[in-house]
């Protein structure tokens, strides 16, 4: 592990290297469920929500929506139960942070779920886990069984009036079921077709009941916030921009990872503020011997790509948006100079075409069309007008569908086409007049 770099802050990852931390016997002496006890015995649900609001915690699933605000949208007095859904369908290529949490500290995940369920007065938590994560499923189920035996899950938790069930629901292998409304449909036993919004899940979610959906990492922050207070959380990381009253900054800590063509791929925890360059070159160890870094996608495959020259950006929600990309899941994918960017586009377009649920015309047909065009350019059969055709496809796909999968399909490949135009032109026959990069 590199030292002398940006310091790690181990909050979520404090048990990652502790043997058998997935068992209650090890986890509880290390503090597990203390926040649950504190919340249930000394705080009202509204007070928990208030602390989360003060913490300025933003969703760690990719969109960065303020968690406390999301919770405040939950419909009250509907006569229906309220549910909490934990989105553990981590299927974004390049993302592997939630798996670490679920496998190495499942009791933290369960505690986060329970405290959050208490805050929104939910009677049950559904943890929707990616089907390709059998270890995560096993560890979570083991943790829930242990917690139940210890009176931490189920009826009258810790002898209080709060009752909450926690269910693990394995996914069946569809990326789209990580989209929150696609997830809800899948949880109900239907095809994972995202729903049109409104109504938003907080009003009508799973089984038509008010539902809050949060990412694993997001909810895993809640126990620390309850233990130390929202203001202590907000002091970490990047504070809100004082000039912008709507800014929430990037507070607390964030699991960040690097994968791809680097010496030292891995996962670490930082207060946002580390730059992408420090992450990739410092913790990630930089390029393999004799190679150069060509492009980095900062947070899972669905974010626009950044060039090596653009890596001095801080790993924060707003900072990455300002440079035309996004924090996403905070797990960077590195491509070096041996990577053919046209082939990368073929691969990315293939992924999104394959994972498109098929509902909306532009996404269903457009993603595969993009793939076919990228394929022919990669094979040397590109036509001179293909880059213009691709630009018009991006326009025809982005923002024209029910959910954001189509947008996610466009962003990375569009940024690659624009930033590596020369690589595309070089493959075209007859070679058209070079334009742009």
């Amino acid at each position, binding site marked *: 592990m590199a030292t002398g770099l940006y310091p790690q802050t181990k909050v979520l990852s404090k048990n990652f290297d502790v043997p058998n931390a997935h068992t209650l016997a090890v986890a509880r002496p290390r503090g597990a469920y203390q926040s649950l006890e504190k919340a249930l015995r000394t705080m009202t649900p509204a007070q928990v929500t208030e602390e989360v609001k003060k913490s300025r915690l933003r969703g760690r699933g990719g969109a960065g929506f303020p968690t406390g605000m999301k919770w405040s949208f939950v419909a009250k007095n509907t006569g229906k139960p309220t549910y909490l859904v934990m989105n553990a369908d981590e299927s974004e290529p390049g993302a592997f942070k939630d798996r670490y949490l679920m496998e190495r500290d499942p009791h933290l995940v369960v505690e986060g779920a329970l405290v959050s369920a208490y805050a929104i007065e939910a009677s049950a938590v559904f943890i929707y886990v990616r089907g390709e994560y059998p270890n995560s499923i096993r560890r979570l189920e083991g943790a829930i069984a242990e917690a139940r035996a210890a009176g931490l899950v189920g009826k009258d938790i810790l002898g209080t009036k709060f009752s909450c069930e926690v269910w693990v629901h394995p996914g069946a292998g*569809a990326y*789209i079921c990580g989209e929150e409304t696609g997830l809800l449909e899948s949880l109900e036993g239907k*095809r994972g*077709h995202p729903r*049109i919004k409104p109504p938003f899940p907080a009003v009508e979610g799973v089984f038509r009941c008010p539902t809050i959906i949060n990412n694993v990492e997001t909810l895993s922050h809640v126990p620390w916030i309850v233990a130390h207070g929202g203001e202590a959380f907000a002091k970490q990381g990047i504070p809100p921009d004082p000039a912008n009253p709507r800014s929430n900054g990037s507070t607390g800590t964030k699991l960040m990872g690097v994968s791809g063509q680097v010496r030292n791929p891995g996962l670490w925890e930082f207060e946002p503020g580390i730059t992408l360059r420090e992450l990739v070159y410092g913790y990630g160890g930089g390029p393999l011997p004799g190679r150069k870094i060509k492009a980095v996608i900062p947070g899972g495959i669905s974010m626009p790509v950044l060039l090596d020259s653009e890596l001095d950006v801080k790993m924060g929600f707003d900072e990455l948006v300002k440079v035309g990309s996004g924090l996403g899941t905070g797990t960077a994918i590195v491509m070096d100079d041996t990577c053919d960017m046209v082939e990368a586009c073929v691969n990315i377009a293939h992924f999104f*075409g*394959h*994972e*498109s*649920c*098929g*509902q*909306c*015309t*532009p996404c*269903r*047909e*457009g*993603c*595969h*069309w993009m793939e*076919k*065009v990228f394929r*022919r350019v990669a094979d040397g059969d590109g036509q001179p007008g293909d880059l213009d*055709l691709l630009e*018009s496809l991006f*326009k*025809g796909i982005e*923002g*024209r*569908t*029910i959910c954001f999968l189509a947008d996610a399909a466009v962003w990375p490949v569009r940024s690659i086409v624009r930033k590596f135009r020369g690589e595309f032109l070089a493959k075209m026959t007859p070679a058209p007049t070079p334009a742009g990069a």
Partner: protein
Amino acid sequence: MPKITIDGRVLEFAPGQTIIQVAQANGIEIPHYCYHPGLSVAGNCRICMVEVEKTPKPQIACYVQATDGMVVHTKSAQATEARAGVMEMLLVNHPLDCPICDQAGECKLQDYAFDFGHPTTRTPVEKTHLPKNVPFGAKIVYDGERCIKCTRCVRFTDEITQTHELSMGARGDKEMVIMTSKGEFTTPYAMNIIDLCPVGALTSKDFRFESRVWFMDFTESVCTGCARGCNVTVGARGGRVLRMTPRENQDVNRWWMCDAGRLGYGHANAPTRLTTPRVRTSARAGEFAEVGWEDAIDAAVEALRDAARGGVLADAGATLEELFLLKAVAGRGDLKYASRVGQDEDGFLIVNEKGANQRGAEALGFARAAAPAPAALLFVERGDAVPKALRDGADPVVAFVTDGADVPPTARVVFPLPTWAERDGLLANVDGIVQPIRRCRAAGPRDLRAPLEVLEEIRLGLDAAATPWTHADVVAAVRGAVAPAGLAVPEVEFAPAAPRTVAAPASRTR
């Protein structure tokens, strides 16, 4: 009332109405595939995208509700570009096999491609191939490549019949409709999905490859398969009925009809149909000679004048006007009707009573024929409605029958009867709603005369002092006669008799 502006027109709307509903109510066409007023909103085809001021992205008109002060543009650059983009996407993998597709001519994909699409293709790529010619039960064929995945058919089996035989299967551009049940529909309404399908992905085995739709003649009529009286469009060509499809009527059948009714036109095309009048030539039963219409009418007048008895036995599919004239001609005896009574009433459309005008017959004083009894006049469109025992027991003097097999051997005169597809008239359905059936000019044998005309001539022949009645006179008389029974006869215009014409095809889908 709140107001919305669509394409510069300020329109009032009821809260809760979507943009497309307000537009449709005011005659503004917003293209749509997946939207259907009888189904939930899926919002997946994206062709209905319009520009809404103060929103950055184009919005789907089928889902977004109108709000007071909203300004919508359906023809702006943003809306036009969005629509053309969707249109192009829909055709990327479409086989473009219009020359062999039944839907051609009434296909929304063709219509919108013509209206909004790109004139040239930018897709010289291998198309995605999917299963074709997939049987969906015994009556429907599915083509995965033509399918635009609008899910109307899936929503129909989920929401209307709630039988859930269909689902979407696979994902991305491999997505297609699959049958979840074991290859057969349990609902008797399955064929509605053919009409719902905005393209040629679902076709009817019955109608497949029978005719290009633009060669057909379409007539708005009513199904006579049972007493529900579902509103239909009858498609015919060259003397044959080729297709029946439901027509929207919110009071009767909404947008739907049952499969049995839809396919229940076989007797109109039967090769055994009677096409010329016949007069019995000897005392022996069953020996008839073919004669002209005037000779037959004269013979009928003579025979009825000689007959010692009156009475009528009529198929309950006879129209109010026909029943009225049958009564006028032979009213001095018992007035009876016969109809088939099933056991398949389902609380939706199908009712047990199969006599299309049973309520009308009752209102005109006809009673159900309980046992064989003599009658001077016999009127049979469907042989199964008036069983042979009743027909034989009637021992009629003059008979109107559709099929040669149903000719009563002892009748003196037999007139060939046009089917419901070839007659004008009024029927009272199970709820007492009086609706017109209309003569489809391209259906049935040529030169058949309407029973109404024939009966009127017989009536005048029997009573030289009688005043001649037009169809309108009969309708007026019927109106008064059935009013006490609670039946309201609407004002209906019937087309005058005219040579066969070919009308422009009517669109089947909304």
